[in-house]
């Protein structure tokens, strides 16, 4: 895994500054500390920071084709590269390395943008066609690997992380008010917007071609879902067999690496299944890594330990204390590059450091299973509320909600009244966003802390409208669960889960995560499974659990879903982080950023301090406001990237002085 960067003079041939390009690559040191390389000609500069995983000796980038008319910088893995390489060799392509990167370049040479449909992997890449003077940028289907860009004058600047774009002084750094509205509704921005004005992400499943000053953006893949008539009618046992086989293969090809591969193990079903498959079928020495918490409500140690002894795994855990979470938040945010509403990215940031210190560069994780197989409470909540809406007066139906949120319903006296809150909007079952309206509405409550100026700038912007416009044309043909899954995957998966709880916090410590559940074949298969087999009654991920029957311990299979969360107020308002929180949320700091109303934020802090157990929205508001303040401080007010002089410079192709023959 790596970091990529580039500067493209779209109109002129002024050349690109090597210094500027090297500064960008330097800002990505953590993504690729093993090597770095640059390519420059009179139009473009391509930079690469390498974390060597495949072909350790020969895979130095940028990589070129036979006649050096195509150059690639590539961040990612294409797991089926060995098969693709064979096919390309048969077609006459010659290779000078054993890397997957070179395979991708020849695949592009052979098929153009269609190459993306043949790749099974996670990647962000840039290919420069010297003859056509065309830049090709692409990103994997679900957006596991990041890619951002901006256009400053006639120059397009792109990089794996925004900080590498910001090292260019001509790029302005501002918070985008609309992005703030989106984050405080959906937990993330709606692509291609980022929290920084005029900095865009290349959306997942998209590619962009830029030549002669013109760019075209194209979607090459969308999250698969099907109408009932296109779904399987097979018996569950048969579907389970297919799921097992495919997942096993998804795991098998994700173990391809020239370095050892470990596994994350939380104690939940998804990571347990992945670790189980690896240890039992491929490598019984595989190391596993897990997070522990001080407080019982967050800790999954009991289940983790159960899996560890069952697997006889070589397990290492990190105790993610409240103090560690609090003091690590700023560094974690430096990598997330966006405000967050929960502290849950931080323990994963700490975990990747542990893995790095243990000498590993790659781990398999269980992320994605909840999205693909229907594991989240929000899916069950929508199903129950839909069922309830047919007889809104039924307390029996209403009672199904209680089990979903035991922490809300633990006081029997309050059950009936609590239920009434979930009864709101029961008449809106036909709304395309029925499944998500409660969550988005609740999150939007935090916007009351926005400053008057921020609210004025946002004006009457309506994020729902944008989501509506971007819905798949087939949305209405799908079952309700598929619709909810689509919303979750198209909004939350790439920009939050795979980013702030995925790539960014792992790559912060030079760790690559690989996600078998997001193998496109697995997603395709799951999309053809009927909703009733994904959530049977109120049993989430039923088909996945059934697929792992007799493979995983019963206690793990029968465990009810434990949402992964981390402490908030205990981490941020008490202990070592308290002074920083106080400073960042002081009246003067809030006035400087101008994003939030300082009086209201003061009231919020007082309220949370006075409570033993602050509410969900208040806690999210605290993290959201604090993280926005920190992001502003780090990226707008006081931006600086430290140069790491340890970064080896392995390759420099400088063709700026050469006369290049163009095809047009």
């Amino acid at each position, binding site marked *: 895994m790596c970091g990529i960067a580039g500067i493209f003079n779209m109109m002129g041939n002024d050349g690109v500054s090597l210094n500027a390009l090297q500064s960008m690559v330097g800002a990505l040191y953590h993504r690729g500390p093993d090597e770095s390389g640059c390519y420059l000609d009179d139009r473009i500069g391509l930079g690469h920071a390498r974390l060597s995983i495949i072909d350790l000796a020969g895979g130095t980038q940028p990589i070129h084709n036979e006649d050096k008319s195509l150059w690639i910088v590539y961040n990612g893995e294409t797991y089926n590269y060995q098969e693709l390489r064979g096919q390309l060799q048969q077609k006459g392509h010659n290779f000078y390395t054993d890397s997957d990167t070179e395979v991708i370049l020849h695949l592009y040479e052979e098929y153009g943008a269609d190459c993306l449909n043949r790749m099974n992997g996670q990647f962000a890449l840039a290919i420069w066609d010297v003859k056509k003077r065309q830049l090709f940028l692409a990103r994997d289907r679900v957006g596991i690997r990041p890619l951002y860009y901006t256009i400053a004058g006639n120059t397009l600047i792109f990089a794996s992380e925004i900080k590498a774009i910001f090292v260019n002084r001509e790029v302005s750094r501002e918070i985008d008010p609309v992005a703030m509205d989106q984050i405080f509704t959906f937990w993330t921005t709606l692509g291609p917007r980022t929290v920084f004005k005029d900095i865009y992400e290349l959306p997942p499943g998209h590619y962009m071609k830029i030549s002669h000053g013109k760019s075209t953006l194209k979607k090459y893949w969308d999250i698969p879902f099907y109408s009932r008539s296109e779904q399987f009618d097979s018996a569950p046992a048969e579907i389970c067999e297919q799921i097992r086989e495919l997942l096993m293969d998804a795991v098998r090809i994700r173990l391809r690496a020239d370095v050892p591969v470990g596994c994350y193990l939380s104690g939940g079903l998804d990571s347990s299944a992945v670790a189980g498959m690896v240890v039992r079928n491929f490598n019984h020495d595989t190391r596993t890594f897990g997070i522990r918490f001080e407080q019982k409500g967050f800790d999954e140690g009991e289940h983790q330990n159960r899996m560890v002894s069952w697997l006889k795994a070589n397990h290492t855990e990190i105790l993610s204390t409240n103090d560690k979470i609090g003091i690590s938040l700023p560094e974690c945010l430096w990598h997330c590059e966006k405000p967050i509403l929960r502290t849950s990215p931080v323990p994963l940031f700490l975990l990747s450091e542990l893995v790095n210190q243990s000498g590993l560069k790659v781990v398999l994780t269980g992320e994605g299973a909840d999205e693909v197989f229907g594991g989240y409470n929000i899916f069950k909540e929508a199903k129950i509320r839909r069922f309830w809406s047919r007889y809104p007066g039924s307390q029996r139906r209403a009672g199904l909600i209680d089990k979903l949120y035991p922490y809300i319903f633990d006081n*029997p006296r309050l059950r009936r009244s*609590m239920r009434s809150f979930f009864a709101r909007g029961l008449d809106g079952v036909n709304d395309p966003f029925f499944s998500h309206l409660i969550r988005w509405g609740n999150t939007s409550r935090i916007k009351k802390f926005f400053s008057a100026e921020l609210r004025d700038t946002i004006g009457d912007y309506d994020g729902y409208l944008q989501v509506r416009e971007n819905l798949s044309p087939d949305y209405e043909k799908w079952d309700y669960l598929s619709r909810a899954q689509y919303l979750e995957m198209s909004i939350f998966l790439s920009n939050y889960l795979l980013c702030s709880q995925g790539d960014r916090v792992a790559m912060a410590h030079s760790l690559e995560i690989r996600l078998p559940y997001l193998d496109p074949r697995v997603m395709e298969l799951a999309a053809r499974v009927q909703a009733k087999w994904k959530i049977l009654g109120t049993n989430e991920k039923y088909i996945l659990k059934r697929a792992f029957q007799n493979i995983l311990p019963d206690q793990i299979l029968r465990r009810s879903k434990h949402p992964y969360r981390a402490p908030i107020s205990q981490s941020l308002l008490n202990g070592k982080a308290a002074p920083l929180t106080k400073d960042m949320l002081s009246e003067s700091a809030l006035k400087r950023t101008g994003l939030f109303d300082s009086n209201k934020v003061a009231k919020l802090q007082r309220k949370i301090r006075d409570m033993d157990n602050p*509410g969900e929205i208040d806690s999210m508001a605290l993290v959201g406001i604090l993280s926005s303040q920190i992001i502003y401080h780090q990226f707008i007010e006081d931006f600086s990237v430290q140069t790491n002089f340890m970064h080896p410079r392995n390759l420099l192709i400088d063709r700026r002085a050469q006369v290049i023959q163009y095809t047009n």
Partner: protein
Amino acid sequence: MVDVQQEIRGYIVDKILFDDGEILDENLSFQESGILDSTGFLELITFIEERFGIEISDWELIPENFDTLRKVAGFVQSKKQKNGLDCKLKAGG
């Protein structure tokens, strides 16, 4: 009555709305306007029980009794009278 209502209003403005409470008319429905979510409701009940020293029985714990400022204040007032409690509020709460 006015004192009770003022105090409950102060709590909602300070701890739930966080603003000057401009919209908080005494007949505004908490649920319909979205002022209270489930957590806010819990917090309000806890505040009322602790501040006014009244016990709210299970059957009274329905949103209808707590849906507007006026209803909440009326409910608290009648409870206090019914319980024969000293209506004097603890100074400073």
